[in-house]
């Protein structure tokens, strides 16, 4: 009598582990590079470019929505650093449960800004990412190859 792979605990563990690793790599890279491109303008990466880009983003959102400038500016100025930090945490596997949750919340915050300016395409893309973060959190117990793993209950 043959045994199906789904009923094999070892195979099952490998599939879940691989699925989570793929999500972790994709979301980590996406988040890190999204942070990095905030520093770019004209092919050059500088802090001056970062603040110019973020000021433009903040004033653009405020100009097209009800959100006050102080709120959009504070969010925008911290956004790039947070994306770099969270991206690195996810890629390295440092406290994946916490870092995935916080990054997912950051993406929800970004989606909120786009909802305020009725940018449907951007909202849809962010919705896809938030769904992927949710999926990753479901699989986070299968986290392997991590520098600092969560305590698995």
């Amino acid at each position, binding site marked *: 009598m043959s045994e199906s792979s789904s009923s094999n605990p070892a195979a099952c563990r490998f599939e879940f582990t691989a699925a989570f690793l793929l999500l972790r790599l994709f979301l980590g890279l996406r988040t890190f590079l999204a942070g990095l*491109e*905030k520093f*770019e*303008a*004209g*092919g050059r990466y500088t802090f001056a470019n970062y603040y110019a*880009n973020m000021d*433009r*983003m*903040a*004033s*653009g*959102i405020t*100009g*097209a929505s009800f959100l006050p400038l102080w709120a959009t500016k504070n969010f925008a100025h911290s956004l790039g650093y947070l994306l770099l930090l969270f991206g690195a945490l996810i890629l390295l596997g440092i406290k994946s449960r916490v870092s995935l949750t916080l990054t997912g919340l950051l993406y929800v915050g970004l989606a909120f*800004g786009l909802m305020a*300016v009725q*940018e449907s395409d951007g909202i849809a893309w962010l919705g896809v990412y938030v769904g992927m973060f949710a999926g990753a959190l479901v699989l986070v117990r299968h986290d392997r190859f991590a520098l600092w793993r969560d305590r698995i209950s």
Partner: protein
Amino acid sequence: MPTPPFPGFTRRDFLTTGAKLGAAFLAAPYILRASPTEGGGDDTLNVALIGCGEQGRVLLNAALKIPHIRFRAVCDIWPYNRTYGERLLKKFGHDPKPYEDYRELLASTPGLDAVIVATPDFMHSEHTCAALKAGHHVYCEKLMSNTVEGARAMVRTARETGKLLQIGHQRRSNPRYIHARDHLIREAHLLGRITNASGQWNRAVTEDLGFPANQALSEATLHKYGYENMHEFRNWRWFKRYAGGVISDLGAHQIDVFNWMLGVNPTTVLAGGGRDYYTNHDWYDNVIAIYEYPTEAQIVRCTYQVLTTTSAGGGYHEYFMGDEGALKMSENPKYTKLYREARAPEWDQWVDKGFIAKPGSGEGAPPPVKPWEKPRARLPGASKSTSVVDVRETAELSAWDIPVTLDKAIHQPHLENFFDSIRGKTTLNCPGESALATAATVLRVNEAVAAKKQLTFAPEDFTV
């Protein structure tokens, strides 16, 4: 008694100052137009207008923006139009004397320098020749005449009297058209070898013009001036005894651009058309023509269509196509574009020289960046084209802008050119001789439609 917020500034002062400021605000648009005596001096030209109808008003409004012009008289057989022209001019500080008969105007207005003729086409020759013989320079609306013989008489009279005759093909004075012809085509050769051209004016259905019942001219007056009835007087463009039809009304502007841009007159014309929609008109309501132009490089075939039942198909433009590029021209800048063939040399040097510009908006422009977005970076080596084409298709043309725009009324530069020519500062952009060639080119289309065959031109068709 409370202390006023601005000591020394009473309520009376406030009301007086407010009234003055209000009056100045209301009068500003009129003050901003050129005053007839602005600057004074010897170069002020005394001008009369014959024909205060639709086109006359367009020319009046353009001329009113030009300094050192004083309108001394207006003439129209219809009091309704005449009064309009007179009142408009008085509003801007002119004091024109109104006339019904142009003969009276020419005989009773001393010191005139120039006459603007904006009457129906069948009167152009008579009015122009009379004004020239009276010793005045003439600006006459296009089409020069509804007959080639009428146009020839105008040229002959101008030569005999030594007076200037400018015809109202105003694109010839449009700085964008001049830039396109002189710099883009002739200097930079951006089109390479010009092989074909096309032009069109597609206009939606229009209702016939009416008139206030109490303003109708008497039958005797209409007959005296050559009109059958009030309906034909108001809608003269559609009747053969007064005009040359749509190919003359609309097509003449663009066929003139064919002649002007290519620098030669055509050798043949083949045309089709008919009165298929407006059964109460004499003239064709749709015409399609094919010309052959013998340029130095090769025969250039030019198609032209004028439709008066649809505005679909891209409005109105002239399109010159060569083996390295194509130029789409229109008085409306939104229809203007320049295209580079993939095989042509790079055009970046012409951007640096200011001849052309990378499109900032519209066709060929990068997608608009939203206010909160960062301008998109282009990586070195990234493809400029995003679409995939069938292997049998030629690579997509790149679109470019022409960085020259006209910031005046479209007829103003042509009038300025006329007035400056009178002052000896320049030469006419559309002298009678040149417009005669255009009239011959245009009017032969109607003959080709009637003959249902290709007709040929002889060189003498375009000359006196």
